[in-house]
C-alpha cells in the first residue's frame, strides 16, 4: 500500500525522538563552552617549543639546526641561528635560535616538524582556542609565545612525554658512560705510554694522537 514506507520512516523518527530522553547513546550533543569533551592523548594542534628547567629562553632544547624549517610542507617556520653558543642538556655547547617564528595561519598541523626533530625540541600543543584580534601579527607566534615548559608537555601528553624523557635520560646516560669509558681508556693508554716512556727513555715519542685528544 502506498504510504506505508513513509509511516515506517515516521516510526523510526518517533523512536529516535522518544529514545533521546532515555538512551544515553542517542544524546550526543555537548554544550560546548560550559561542557567540554576531553581531548584524546594524541590530539594535536599547533607546534610549540619545549624548555627544560625554569628558564624559558636559556632552557630551550632547540639548537637551531633548521631541519624543521626545511621539512615543513607549507614553510611556516622561520629560524635565525644565534652567533654564540650555550650549553644544552648534555652540557655540550650548542647554537640556539635567535628568532623562531611559526605562522599559525599557515601551519596545517601535520606534525612533520615533530617527526624530523632530532632533539625532541618541538612538540604538538593542544591549545585550540586561539582567536585573535589581528589577522597578521597576532597569528605569527614568536619564540617567547612558543616556548613552554616540559611540565606543560607532561600535562598535555603524559604518555608521550614520559617516553621522551626516558629517551633523553638514556641518551645522557649513554653519553656519560661513553665519556667515562673513553676517559678510562685514555687513562690506561696514558699509563701504558708513561710506562713505555719510562722503559725506553732515550726514544722520543713517535707522534700520533695524544691521549687528551682521544678522550675528547
Amino acid at each position, binding site marked *: 500500500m502506498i*504510504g506505508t514506507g513513509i509511516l515506517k*520512516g515516521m516510526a523510526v523518527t518517533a523512536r529516535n525522538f522518544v529514545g533521546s530522553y532515555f538512551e544515553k547513546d542517542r544524546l550526543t550533543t555537548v554544550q560546548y563552552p560550559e561542557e567540554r569533551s576531553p581531548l584524546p592523548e*594524541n590530539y*594535536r594542534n599547533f607546534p610549540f617549543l619545549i624548555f627544560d628547567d625554569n628558564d624559558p629562553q636559556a632552557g630551550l632544547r632547540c639548537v637551531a639546526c633548521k631541519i624543521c624549517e626545511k*621539512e615543513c*610542507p607549507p614553510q611556516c617556520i622561520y629560524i635565525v641561528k644565534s652567533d654564540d653558543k650555550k650549553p644544552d642538556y648534555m652540557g655540550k655547547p650548542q647554537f640556539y635560535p635567535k628568532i623562531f617564528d611559526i605562522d599559525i595561519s599557515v601551519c596545517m598541523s601535520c*606534525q*612533520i616538524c615533530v*617527526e624530523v626533530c632530532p632533539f625532541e625540541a618541538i612538540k604538538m600543543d593542544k591549545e585550540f582556542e586561539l582567536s585573535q584580534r589581528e589577522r597578521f601579527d597576532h597569528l605569527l607566534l614568536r619564540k617567547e609565545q612558543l616556548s613552554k615548559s616540559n611540565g606543560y608537555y607532561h600535562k598535555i601528553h603524559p604518555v608521550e612525554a614520559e617516553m621522551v624523557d626516558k629517551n633523553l635520560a638514556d641518551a645522557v646516560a649513554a653519553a656519560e658512560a661513553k665519556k667515562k669509558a673513553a676517559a678510562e681508556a685514555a687513562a690506561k693508554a696514558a699509563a701504558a705510554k708513561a710506562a713505555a716512556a719510562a722503559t725506553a727513555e732515550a726514544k722520543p715519542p713517535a707522534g700520533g694522537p695524544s691521549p687528551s685528544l682521544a678522550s675528547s
Partner: protein
Amino acid sequence: MNGANGMSAAVETIEVMERPPLSMGSRLEGELLEVSMGPQHPSTHGVFRMNVALDGEIVRKLKPVFGYLHRNHEKIGENTSYLGSMPYTDRLDYFCSMTNNWAYALSVEKLAGIEVPERAEYLRVILAELTRLQNHASLLGFLLSDMGAWGTPLMYAFREREKILDLFESLSGSRMMCDYMRFGGCRVDADDEWLARAKQIVDRFPKFLDEFEELILGNEIVIARTQNVGKLSAELAVSAGITGPMLRACGVNYDIRKVDGYGFYPRFKFRIPLGEHGDTYDRLMMRALEMRESVEILKQAFPQIAPGPIVNPKVKVRAFRPPVGEAYGRIEGPKGELGFYLISDGSPNPYRYRVRPPSFINLTLLEDLCLGHTVADVMVILGSIDIVMGEVDR
C-alpha cells in the same frame, strides 16, 4: 592485467540500457533559458557551478564549471619532499583522508619497493573500511538532504560518522586531517583500548543501517524521486572511466579490492554488491549494501590483528630518495579508483606527481545523466555521484 580481463568479460554479459529520453513531450515550443546554478548553491556540495539550458523545467544542456577550489596540488607535490605531500593528500577528499593517505603511501611504496609490516596492513584495512562507512553514511544523509528531507536523515548519519571521527581523532590526533599513514607503515600504533572501542562501534553499526534503511529505502517519495532518474548504461560508464559504486550500480563487477588485491584484502571474505539499472536508486542502494560488506570486513579484521611493529624501520624520515623510476598506486576509495602516479628522478622531490581523482572523473558524465530530467532531479543526480570539490579541483 587482471583488471582489464575482468572488466571486458563483465561488459560483454551486460545488455546496453537505453539513454534517458531527450524530450519529455513539452507542448509549448519556446526559447531555452540559461541558468547558472552555483557556485554558491548549497546543493552543489561545494563551489561547483552548472550552466544549464532549460526548456521549461527540463534540462536540455548542462555544462559543469569547476576549478574554483584549485590549489595547485600536483605542482606543490612536485616541489616538496615525498613525505611533505602526505598531509596535502588529506585535503584532497577531506571526507576520506585515511584512504587518500593509503593511496599515496601505496604508490611511494611501489616506487621505492618498501615492505609494510603485517600490523600496519591490518590497521590500514581497518581505517580504510571505517572511512568507507563514514563516507557512505554521510553521502546518504546528504542525498536525502538534497531531496528535501532536511535535517533528520543527515543528522542520523552524522551521529554515526561522529563516532568514527572520534576514533580517528584519538588515533591520529585529528578528526579529518588525519595524516596517519607513512611510507612503510603507520605513524601511531593503536592500543587494545582503541581496537576494543572500534570493535564496539562496528558491532553497533548494523543497528544504524537497519534503522536507516527502514527510514529511507522503502519511502515512496525517495523511490519516486530516484528510480529511473539519471540512468547510466554500463557501456557508457566503462568507456568514460567511471569507477566505484557508480560503476557497480550499472552492474559492472569491478572493485579494485578484488581486482588488484592490494593490502590484505585477499585475506578477507566479502562480496561486491552490484546494481542492475544504473539509476540513482541503485547508486543509493549500492552505498547501503557496501556499508554492510565493510562491516563484514571489519568484523574479520579485529580478531586477526596481532601485535607487532607498525612501521618499516628501513625507511628514512629525512632525506627520503626513492630510486629512479615510475609507479602508479591505486586503491578502491569510497568514491572510486583513487590513484597516484609518481615519476622519480632520484631527487628528494617527485619529478611528476599526478592524482587520478575518482570524483572528478565520475563528474564528467553529469550532462549525460541529467539531460531530459527536471532541475530538481539534477541535484539528486549530482548528490548520487558523490563528489567532493577538494578532490575535483585539487
